């Protein structure tokens, strides 16, 4: 009997192929979208996570804080707190901190003859490549002597070097740097390797000079923009965060913690994870709504089908079909619709996820859970929205049904 009912359902779906396909479409799109979106979400998250980790897993950014504007005070960023001495002090007093790297940042125009490029200029010390896990492609980085003598030497990001010099050798060349409408002459001593976009913007579009040169010749300020602290190991990152917080609060007499803002790798990962998770959830929710709409489509078509086949129902009842036989016939039909829609949807979702993963260059992540969930949800929707039309069919009065034209 069970086999007969399944065969019956497929026979009936086969007779009206276009209608069957159209009523499946909602489910196909819904399931496909759920699978694709969940997969794209996890793929993108995996990529972002691995990118952040590649920046160095024990990195802690210490940024200027933002004071709240209240009672007539304008909200502003605290720019005049981070000195070189404070960096040295933190490095000495915090036991879990290996290094505190001061950074001065600004935007400058780099000029080589006819070519010029706008780049982010970083004043850094000699430990910058080590802390950021970011190496040279050619030449050398800024050394202690450059720092002591405030030398006009510059290391270029890969994109900057290519824009200014193309494929020709940049090492030893002199370029002009226009910073706040003043020109300075710098000698290129190194070019950095190519690296993906990070949290601090596109690293390839940056240039590095000695921090002493930056402070004394360019900005004329004794304050730097921010610090990058490196914990002794990734396991000690969280204790490093509390130590830095403790000493900075004490040193700056900043009880309200307004003057600085500590961002650790863990926190950033957490933020990214929660953002991508809620994004996936939202998009998944939208996809689930389309599944729901698909279910309503199935109900609609099943209701039409029940009405159209009133006479058939009457005949079957006259021949001895019980209410439950009629009910299961139409229910199996609705389930077949949503089940087949679900299968095609899985295929479509996989294809979509695969294509986008190729374009986005991230790993294809399709979890069995998301596939089972989407398919199961499709079946439940088929069951739920098939129930009413099936009940309507089962409850028909045989005399009325046989009379139906």
């Amino acid at each position, binding site marked *: *009997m069970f086999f*007969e009912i399944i065969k019956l359902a497929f*026979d*009936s779906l086969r*007779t009206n192929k276009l209608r069957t396909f159209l009523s499946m479409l909602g489910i196909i799109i819904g399931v496909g979208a759920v699978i694709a979106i969940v997969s794209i979400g996890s793929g993108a998250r995996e990529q972002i996570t691995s990118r952040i980790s590649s920046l160095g897993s024990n990195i802690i950014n210490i940024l200027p804080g933002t004071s709240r504007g209240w009672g007539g005070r304008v909200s502003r960023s605290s720019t005049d707190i981070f000195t070189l001495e404070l960096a040295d002090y933190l490095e000495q007093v915090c036991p879990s901190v290996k290094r505190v790297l001061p950074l001065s940042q600004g935007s400058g125009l780099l000029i080589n003859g006819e070519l010029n490029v706008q780049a982010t200029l970083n004043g850094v010390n000699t430990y910058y490549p080590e802390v950021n896990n970011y190496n040279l492609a050619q030449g050398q980085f800024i050394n202690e002597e450059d720092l002591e003598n405030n030398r006009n030497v510059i290391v270029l990001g890969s994109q900057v070097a290519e824009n200014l010099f193309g494929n020709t050798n940049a090492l030893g060349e002199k370029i002009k740097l226009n910073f706040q409408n003043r020109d300075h002459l710098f000698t290129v001593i190194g070019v950095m390797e190519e690296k993906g976009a990070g949290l601090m913007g596109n690293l390839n579009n940056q240039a590095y000079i000695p921090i002493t040169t930056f402070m004394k010749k360019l900005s004329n300020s004794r304050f730097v923009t921010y610090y990058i602290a490196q914990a002794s190991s990734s396991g000690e990152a969280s204790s490093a965060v509390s130590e830095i917080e403790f000493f900075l609060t004490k040193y700056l007499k900043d009880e309200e913690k307004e003057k600085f803002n500590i961002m650790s790798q863990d926190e950033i990962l957490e933020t990214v994870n929660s953002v991508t998770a809620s994004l996936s959830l939202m998009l998944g929710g939208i996809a689930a709504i389309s599944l729901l709409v698909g279910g309503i489509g199935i109900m609609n078509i099943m209701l039409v089908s029940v009405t159209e086949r009133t*006479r*058939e129902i*009457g*005949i*079957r*009842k*006259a*021949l*001895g*079909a*019980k*209410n*439950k*036989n009629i009910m299961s016939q139409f229910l199996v039909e609705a389930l077949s619709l949503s089940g087949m829609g679900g299968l095609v949807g899985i295929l479509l979702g996989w294809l979509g996820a695969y294509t986008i993963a190729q374009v986005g260059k991230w790993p294809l992540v399709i979890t069995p859970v998301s596939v089972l969930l989407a398919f199961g949800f499709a079946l439940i929707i088929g069951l739920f929205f098939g129930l009413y039309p099936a009940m309507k069919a089962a409850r028909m009065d*045989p*005399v009325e049904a*046989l009379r139906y034209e």
Partner: protein
Amino acid sequence: MLEIKKIKKIYQLGKVKVEALKGVSFGIEKGDFVAIMGPSGSGKSTLMHIIGCLDKPTEGNFFLDGKDVSKLNDDKLAEIRNKSIGFVFQQFNLLSRASLLHNVETPLIYAGVKVKKRRELAKSALDSVGLGDRLKHRPNEISGGERQRTAIARALVNNPLIILADEPTGNLDTKTGEEIMRIFNRLNQEGHTIIMVTHEPDIARHARRIIRLRDGLIERDEKI
């Protein structure tokens, strides 16, 4: 074998009560061939629905093979329709998308008969009405007479107590109608009990007994 006692059927149409059957009683013996006649509105369709267990009487009792079936629930009635009654309708009422074989098999599917046995029974039923070579055809590929013969095969396949025919020749020309009636006569000779609703005297003449209805009551009940 079939006993109808003071059957009444009242329909509620909006606020108006319509009494389709006003107390009808009669019995039918095994092996009889009875025609139920009457003008439209006489209640013959209602009576047929009750005998066919498609509908329940408002009052009275209906004994089939000694068992009162007038108070049974839907599922029990479906079982009786399946096992004890074979329908032949004016409109043939075949499943248009199914082959003749599948059409004749359908009652056996609901009876839970196994595939192999089912095929066999359906084939021999179609053979007996001369359609053994049309098993794979669909109803729209054959003539009206052949459709009605398929319906007769379907009615026979469960070896029912009663074959219930509702205007079986109403959609056929005279010649084909005669052919169908010859099949009914043959089946009756073979021992099948047949109850047939018709308004055509020529067709009713094939029966052995004619019950005439008028305004929900038996007007005349005569043996031929």
